[in-house]
């Protein structure tokens, strides 16, 4: 079964990140080229030419694909602008920083390519229900880098949002910036009941480093540690920015928050 198509898509489209590609697949937008990545791409795009990734574009493959529009990550849009403009190619930055932004982006793409139905369906699938609680369990979200250092994520980050929707309260982070160096005093005082530790890359190594760091003060004193409410998470379900696995991630978080309450 294929969804009915009101008219044939004429624009030649390129996606440059895996998250965008995944959305395109769900909307059944035809692409002419996809990013170079180690992750598995949706079946229908696997044979397409690869144009590098959002950090390093392969211009030769990109031009050869003769695109009309190129979708890039909003963080890194600037670098490519002048070159694409000179080639009279439209560049569009898609924002996937947060959950609502992702939904907006899906809606936008659906309208753009006449896939409103598919978009609506996808959005419906991605709906998550806010949980209301009297008590909000305190949750600390950390993002670990290979090499042993880590950052605290706040409630406006993708994972932070999910935690708050699940009725938790994000603690130990700076409310004004998405990622910051952790302030151990603040964390000690906030005394989180749950700790979620995300690996930015190399999950096995990052998890091991987290374990060691949590043997020292103040982390070993936290209620979360004493009650074994510390969870290591990783891609593809969890990531620093939003992706289509949001339901899985959310139900997992909900479960953890429920346990505490």
């Amino acid at each position: 079964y294929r969804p009915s198509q009101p008219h044939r898509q004429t624009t030649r489209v390129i996606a440059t990140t895996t998250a965008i590609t995944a959305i395109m697949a769900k909307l059944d937008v035809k692409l002419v080229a996809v990013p170079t990545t180690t992750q598995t791409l949706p079946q229908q795009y696997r044979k397409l030419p690869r144009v590098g990734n959002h950090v390093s574009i392969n211009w030769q493959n990109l031009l050869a694909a003769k695109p009309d529009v190129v979708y890039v990550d909003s963080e890194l849009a600037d670098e490519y602008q002048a070159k694409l403009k000179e080639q009279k190619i439209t560049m569009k930055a898609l924002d996937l920083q947060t959950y609502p932004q992702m939904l907006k982006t899906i809606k936008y793409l659906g309208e753009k390519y006449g896939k409103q139905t598919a978009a609506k369906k996808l959005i419906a699938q991605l709906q998550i229900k806010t949980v209301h609680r009297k008590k909000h369990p305190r949750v600390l979200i950390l993002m670990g880098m290979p090499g042993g250092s880590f950052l605290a994520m706040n409630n406006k980050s993708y994972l932070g949002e999910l935690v708050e929707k699940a009725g938790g309260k994000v603690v130990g982070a700076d409310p004004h910036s998405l990622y910051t160096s952790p302030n151990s005093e603040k964390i000690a005082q906030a005394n989180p009941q749950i700790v979620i530790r995300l690996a930015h890359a190399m999950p096995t190594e990052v998890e091991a480093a987290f374990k060691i760091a949590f043997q020292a003060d103040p982390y070993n004193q936290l209620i979360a540690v004493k009650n074994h409410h510390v969870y290591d998470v990783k891609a593809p379900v969890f990531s620093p920015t939003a992706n289509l696995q949001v339901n899985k991630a959310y139900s997992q978080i909900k479960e953890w928050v429920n346990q505490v309450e």
Partner: protein
Amino acid sequence: MNKKNWLLGSMLAGCILLIFLQLSLQMNFANNWQLIFWQLRLPRLLFVLGTGLCLGLSTLLLAATLRQPYIDGSMLGIANGAELLVALLTIINANVLTYRVLVGALAGVLCLFLLRGSVFKLKTRPVFMIIGGFCLAMFFNALTVILTSNSGWTGKSMGNVTWMDVIWLLIILVGGSFFWLLYGRYLPYFALPEIQTRQLAFPENQVAMTFQIIAALWLGAATAVLGTAFFAGVVLNQLIKELTKLGLVARLPLVAIFSILMILTADTLGHFAFYPTELPTNAVLLLLLTPAFVFLIVRWSRAL
């Protein structure tokens, strides 16, 4: 100078080989190759050649006029300043990107005047120049990192060169050269200490400023696309200097051609080593200079 000609010749040959590689490698002649040649390969190649010239010679000029052989524009904050201004203006108005080479060049000159108004005044205390410049560089770098929330390595690629970039670089190169021609004959004077040059019948201050402006323009223009390549200018210049033991003017063509050669190599490697993934040319350049440097060290320490 047999050795000099031999060096020049072999480096030129290397350049030509690399130009050929740059234009032909991974070229699929079945599929609209004209577009790729004219819109990607050629502007990129031209810009790389210009960048080599800018990087090598801007350092030569700065080092000479400041009488500080181990200083280049990256260490004085000129490169980081250019990067910062381009990033800043782009955030305000994205159209600036079209003229980034011009903006970079002007930012370079701006930084220069900042420096001339502060650290350069302490001519008699070179250490302050080095420290002050580097502090400025690190300061600009920190701001850029915060502003662009990335590491400064990512995204800078010669693959993004547009014809507009090439044209502006050419204009800035030609403009600079014009002023160079005007004052070029005074360049060797800077091998003497200031107590000597102040007695020679030439407007030292004006000449030094002109050369420094040329250097800042060129470095800023190149940096806008290449990104900062810390210390590359000094390494390029000092390798040639110590290898040939030639004076300022005599080693000028060698520095120029060597810089072009190294940046060509870096860009060719960055472009094709992990094709289709691109590596940032400035990072490759630095990685490249390390082994080149180690090789020379080994050679020299044997010769001592």
